[in-house]
């Protein structure tokens, strides 16, 4: 490549990983959407040459990638940190079988939980699975480490975990790249069956475990010498800092003169290099986000670094937290912040969101509700407050059954309802339903179908009829799936019709057998066409506050009376149905349909 073709461009870490995959000749990329990883696959798809797939969940995504690797192609599979839990089964075993074409699993961790339910540190998983672990610290490294990752994968016969964090994924920094370079997929042709390696029967797997241990030794030796990955930046030798990932940038910012051991390959660790570094500085520190992953291994070498006693184990690091740890004053002398409480601006269900009527109805029925992961988790917040639990993808269906067992045992006859979105249902709700049918559950599952993976920015999934490559495909029929697993009571209800919705939920809860109610309403951010003309207030509002209970952003109650913002209202008419004074009406577009409604 000539210098003339290279340009300097700002890319997010996610875009850089995508470009890295393309430049390294990845044949295939797969993912299930999840913040902060989603844009990796989207960016690869936008380029239109690497084969891309949204999978129903992370396990399937990784398994398809394993198949591509076995067949000889380079494959990259991306997911958020908790997605790796779902993919853990094939991930751990793929460490034993090894690879054919290079195989990279991108784990996008979310310290500070900007959009997650926990802040697990997935470096532990790479170590537990005994695979190579790479941690880039900016976009250039994110790009470079993908190519390096494929090379390591193929040279050492290992899957590689590329571990990034929100501040890598969603931060931009300059990258040297030739965007016009042609795409050339790397293929290891001449696939040959290899029973001893690829069929993990116990006898083979015992033998493979030995290869895994040998591989770790070789990888460690490699890490001792490979300066693109692990390097010492000698500076003032009073303080020496071992660090990795985005924490490296904060250290450079806060202590520009300190000596730094910058680690890019963090499993296995280069023990000799660490000893050499420790021997060259007066005081040894480890600065890393979340768990003392590096620190504990440095201690195991008999060294005595300072780490988590001065740097927080929870949340993400930033220049202030790193400076405070080192006992330095924060750089700026800032404006005094306002002490008085300011009104918060939390995310809310959009005006006209099809989920709102469901949670409003549930909040009034005295039922226990197990929720799930998606926009609809906002139904747990005031004023709706219609959710008792939200644990992980797909948990709502199984948890509802379990909770019912315990409530009944305690003489509590409150019905339990599981609420799950369409994408989440496909991800891991179906097996929960199979369990309910098989084990004689009696609960009702509400399947909120908004026709997209909304929370992560509207990705397609097996129920939308479109692939990640933009082709139309067979769309999963939820009603048929529910019936096929043995649910006899399956019905569809318009979630904008509050009366019909409540009647349906009551009927199904009384039925004494598993049931599914599909509530279909396309996400308002996907289809912005107004449902009807905006609602209008026809009387002097007495301010009873009934409609405020909907928590609709088009309805302002701060004056004590309802005020509708016609630029936000899309005519869903939930408030019209609720007003006890019949003072809210819809005229114009859509009015007739509402009049004729039951």
């Amino acid at each position, binding site marked *: 490549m000539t210098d003339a073709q290279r340009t*300097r*461009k*700002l890319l997010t870490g996610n875009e850089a990983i995508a470009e890295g995959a393309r430049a390294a000749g990845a044949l295939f990329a797969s993912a299930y959407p999840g*913040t*902060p990883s989603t844009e990796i696959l989207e960016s690869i798809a936008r380029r239109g040459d690497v084969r891309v797939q949204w999978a129903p969940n992370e396990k399937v995504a990784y398994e398809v990638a394993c198949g591509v690797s076995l067949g000889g192609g380079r494959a990259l599979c991306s997911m958020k940190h908790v997605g790796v839990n779902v993919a853990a089964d094939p991930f751990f075993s793929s460490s034993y079988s090894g690879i054919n074409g290079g195989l990279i699993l991108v784990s996008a961790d979310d310290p500070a939980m*900007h*959009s997650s339910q926990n802040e697990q540190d997935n470096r532990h998983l790479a170590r537990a699975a005994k695979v190579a672990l790479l941690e880039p610290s900016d976009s250039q490294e994110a790009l470079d480490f993908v190519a390096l990752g494929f090379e390591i994968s193929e040279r050492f016969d290992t899957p590689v975990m590329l571990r990034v964090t929100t*501040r890598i994924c*969603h*931060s*931009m*920094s*300059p990258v040297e790249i030739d965007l016009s370079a042609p795409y050339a997929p790397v293929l290891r042709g001449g696939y040959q069956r290899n029973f001893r390696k690829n069929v993990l029967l116990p006898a083979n797997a015992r033998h493979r475990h030995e290869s895994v241990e040998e591989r770790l030794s070789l990888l460690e030796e490699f890490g001792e010498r490979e300066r693109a990955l692990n390097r010492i930046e000698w500076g003032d030798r009073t303080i020496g800092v071992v660090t990795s990932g*985005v924490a490296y*940038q*904060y250290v*450079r*910012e806060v202590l520009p003169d300190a000596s730094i051991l910058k680690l890019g390959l963090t499993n296995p660790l280069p023990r000799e290099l660490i000893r050499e570094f420790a021997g060259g500085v007066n005081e040894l520190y480890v600065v890393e986000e979340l768990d003392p992953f590096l620190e504990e291994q440095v201690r195991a070498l008999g060294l005595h670094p300072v780490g988590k006693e001065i740097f927080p184990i929870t949340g993400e690091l*930033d*220049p*202030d937290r790193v*400076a405070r740890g080192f006992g330095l004053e*924060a*750089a*700026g*002398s*800032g*404006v*005094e*912040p*306002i002490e*008085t409480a*300011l*009104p*918060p*601006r*939390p*995310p*809310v*269900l*959009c005006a006209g969101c099809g989920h709102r009527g469901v949670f409003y109805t549930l909040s009034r029925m005295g039922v226990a509700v197990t929720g799930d992961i998606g*926009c609809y988790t*906002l139904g747990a*917040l*005031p*004023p709706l407050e219609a959710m008792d639990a939200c644990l992980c993808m797909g948990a709502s269906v199984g948890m509802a059954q379990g909770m019912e067992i315990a409530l009944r045992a305690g003489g509590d006859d409150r019905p339990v309802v599981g609420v799950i979105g369409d994408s989440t249902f496909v991800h891991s709700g179906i097996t929960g339903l199979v369990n309910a049918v098989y084990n004689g559950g009696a609960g009702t599952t509400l399947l909120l179908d908004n026709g997209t993976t909304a*929370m992560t*920015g509207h990705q397609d999934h097996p129920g939308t009829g479109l692939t990640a490559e933009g082709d139309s495909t067979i769309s999963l029929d939820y009603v048929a799936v529910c019936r096929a697993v043995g649910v006899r009571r399956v019905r569809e209800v318009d979630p904008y019709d509050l009366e019909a919705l409540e009647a349906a939920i009551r009927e199904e809860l009384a039925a004494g057998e598993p049931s599914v109610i599909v509530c279909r309403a396309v996400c308002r*951010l996907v289809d912005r066409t107004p449902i009807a003309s905006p609602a209008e207030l026809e009387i002097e509002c007495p301010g009873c*506050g009934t409609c*405020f*209970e909907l*928590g609709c*952003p088009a*309805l*302002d*109650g*701060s004056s004590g009376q309802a005020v509708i913002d016609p630029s936000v209202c899309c005519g869903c008419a939930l408030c019209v149905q609720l007003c006890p004074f019949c003072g809210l009406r819809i005229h114009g577009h859509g009015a007739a349909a509402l009049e004729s409604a039951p």
Partner: protein
Amino acid sequence: MKARNVFLTGVGGHGVLAVSRVIADAALAAGFDVRRSEVHGMSQRGGSVVSQVRYGTSVHSPLIPRGGADILVSLELLEAVRHLGALRRDGVLLANEQRITPAPLGGLTVEYPEDPRGLCEARVERAIFLPAVDLAQALGNEKAANMVMLGAFSVLEPEIPEHMWLTTIAGAFRPRFREINVAAFGCGREIAAASPVVKVQP
């Protein structure tokens, strides 16, 4: 050049991220090292949006130390008040005068500060307030308010020449929005250039 720290905020749908992207790209075109970060998540659902841009000869952290922003750009007044602590004591606040009441939580009275501008002026030495929405509306599209703010920002940054801003804006948006965006940028630039706050800038 020592790292310039720009903290940007607003409400989902405001175009905060578009502004920060143009600043970052223009700074890169001007030959600086650049870092830019943003908080994704549920911004489309009415939440606060924050983005940070840092540029200079050499920058490392994508995040600005608290109280280290040279310029705080806010596309909404309550968000300006909320993030005042991000700004250096001698930094410049650049705020759109628009007020957007947060979505009501069950009709609970949301007390939007009575005089957000006064709260800012009491704490910040140098502030420019612009009726960016009205200005953009007068030009034909209120959505270009973010480009009015960008135009005002450009005056505070002598290290990036005007033509570089215009080239970056031209490359950043679809052609049919180019004219209005360039006009909005010019409008913000002109008004800010006449502001006494800018004249005290060394």
